[in-house]
């Protein structure tokens, strides 16, 4: 639960930056998430083969010999954990770069569109990587997918604890950075454009450029989350990166928590993941039902969102106005201007 919470939190915070602050309805989150995961499916295995000098005959068909290669790499990483961590860090950097490129490519034709058109266009473009991944085997092994070297294999029995800790740290780091952004002038520009494009444009803001920046930054963060998830599960397959799990659910969590409020997003994500795990945990108590219990979960989530949208559209925690200066200073300025 901790790992999944951390991964979804990173994606949801990214969506909050794009949707909550900049007003960009990115219905194509899955594109960047998949981009990050595919980077992990493609790069580390090749990098480790080169570093550990794995038999080149095996490397002739990485997909076919995948299990053998990965087991050899994992043994090497167990002996030299620092190399594993270096590969992990380098892959994350590449994944973030891939995310920025994907964000730019998907945004370029669509960013000037009206919000609903933009959402629909991004939704359609979100499918692209999944189609490529399923059909181009050398990328991530086609429909079967590919095993990824376990960069945490050195941690042995405490692997789960170590990975969960790393993921939580990454999520907290993302929250910290995005909170800094939320209190910075760029965030105020985002909100100005979100609330009134014409007025922001009249104030000299380049609306297209700023929206593009928000989308690219958001895609970079999503790509990071996708890469972290792939390293966590040690597997990448196109079927694991569907629109429902990596676009629709994050949207629902963010709306549930509260748009434009990072802490609301944390709360929304936590409640959603806890609810999901609770249902999975008590799955066998519902064994008498003539259908899969997972559908009860989606039914419940969809219904909750509808109720939230109708009765509390601002989510659990409302957006707070950003204060440029401490309140006392603002009051002082108002007092002075009143005297003049």
């Amino acid at each position: 639960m901790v790992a999944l919470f951390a991964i979804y939190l990173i994606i949801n915070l990214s969506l909050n930056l794009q949707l909550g602050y900049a007003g960009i309805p990115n219905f194509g989150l899955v594109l960047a998430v998949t981009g990050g995961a595919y980077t992990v499916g493609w790069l580390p295995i090749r990098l480790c083969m080169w570093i550990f000098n794995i038999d080149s005959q095996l490397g002739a068909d990485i997909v076919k010999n995948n299990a053998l290669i990965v087991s050899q790499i994992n043994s090497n990483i167990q002996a030299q954990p620092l190399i594993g961590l270096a590969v992990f860090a380098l892959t994350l950097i590449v994944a973030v770069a891939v995310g920025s490129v994907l964000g730019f490519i998907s945004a370029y034709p669509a960013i000037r569109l009206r919000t609903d058109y933009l959402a629909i266009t991004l939704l359609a473009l979100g499918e692209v990587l999944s189609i490529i991944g399923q059909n181009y085997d050398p990328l991530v092994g086609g429909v079967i997918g590919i095993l990824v070297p376990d960069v945490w294999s050195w941690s042995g029995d405490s692997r789960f604890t170590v990975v969960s800790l790393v993921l939580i740290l990454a999520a907290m780091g993302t929250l910290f950075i995005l909170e800094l952004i939320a209190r910075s002038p760029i965030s105020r520009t985002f909100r100005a454009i979100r609330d009134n494009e014409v007025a922001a444009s009249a104030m000299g803001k380049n609306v297209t450029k700023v929206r593009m920046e928000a989308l690219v930054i958001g895609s970079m963060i999503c790509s990071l989350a996708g890469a972290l998830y792939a390293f966590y599960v040690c597997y990448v397959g196109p079927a694991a990166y569907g629109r429902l799990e990596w676009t629709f659910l994050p949207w629902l969590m963010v709306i549930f928590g509260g748009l434009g409020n990072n802490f609301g997003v944390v709360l929304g994500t936590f409640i959603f993941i806890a609810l999901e795990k609770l249902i999975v945990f008590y799955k066998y108590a519902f064994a008498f039902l003539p259908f899969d219990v997972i559908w009860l979960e989606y039914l419940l989530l969809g219904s909750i969102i509808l109720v939230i949208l109708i009765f509390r559209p601002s989510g659990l925690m409302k957006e707070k106005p950003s204060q440029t200066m401490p309140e006392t200073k603002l009051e002082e300025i108002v007092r002075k201007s009143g005297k003049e």
Partner: protein
Amino acid sequence: MIDPTLIDTITYSSLLGIMTFGLSFVRRTTGVWNIAHAGLITIGAYVVFTCISFFGESPYIYLPLAFVLSAVVAVIEYMLIIETLRKRKASTTMMLISTLAFDLVMLSILNIYADYLQNTFSLLSKNFLLKKLDFTLFDEPGIFWASLLFLIIFLAALYGVLNYTKIGTALRACVYNPTLASISGINVMHTNLLSWFISGGLAGVAGGLLPLWIQGKPVLGDSLIAVMFCVSIVGGVEEIYGTVLGGFLVGFTQILGTSALSIVLGPTVIPYKPLIPMVILVLALLFAPSGIAKVNWNKILTVVKFGGEPKRKI
């Protein structure tokens, strides 16, 4: 006998058109992109499948029932969610999200229903194909004729209603200025309700036809929703025939275009067929953002003919 590839292409394009009609229609008349349109299509498929499984006969005779049930669900969606949000002055993005949540609810119910049919009645409800029950006419499958016929009927009916009837004028008035339409005595809620009813019904018919050509499953509509959006945007929602143009452009490019490319580049390009709608979408957004139905072809032809801007009369 017509070339089977051409038959496939026309059937696919016609089905794309029928599926997208409702989506574009409701977007045009009420300003909402309805993601739950996917679920409405799947409902149509399951209505036909259930009736076939329990009562037999031809799938086509259950299409009116598919129309009605999907239309009723669309009306429920409108009344419960869209109208409520509209009264609360929700943004278009919020309405879009609400349709997504409603789709999730429908997806769950459809999956529960499919599981129930499978576990209780031992029906192959999670993957079914009704091709065997289709008729043939002039050696061609019935779905080819039916999809083409329904496309023409729906196009003519919607075009006629929107452009030559009072209801159509009221519908268009509600899109351009709901307040003014309301002042003029038009019941905005009733016209919107009618749009959603028609849109849901069309989705139901499209869903009822689909299992005669491709495999029916609980995610049938959801697996096609991205292509439907592509068709809608490429064709343009402002004109109802834009959907047909978009459907045929996407369908023909996807099937015939891929066949042509495979001759030049080899068979490796065939699996990438689903990418074609996205490529067309990007090109449309770059060169014809209002859709191909809104392109000024006369101007383009003049530019091509004279190699520059058309001469203006002084």
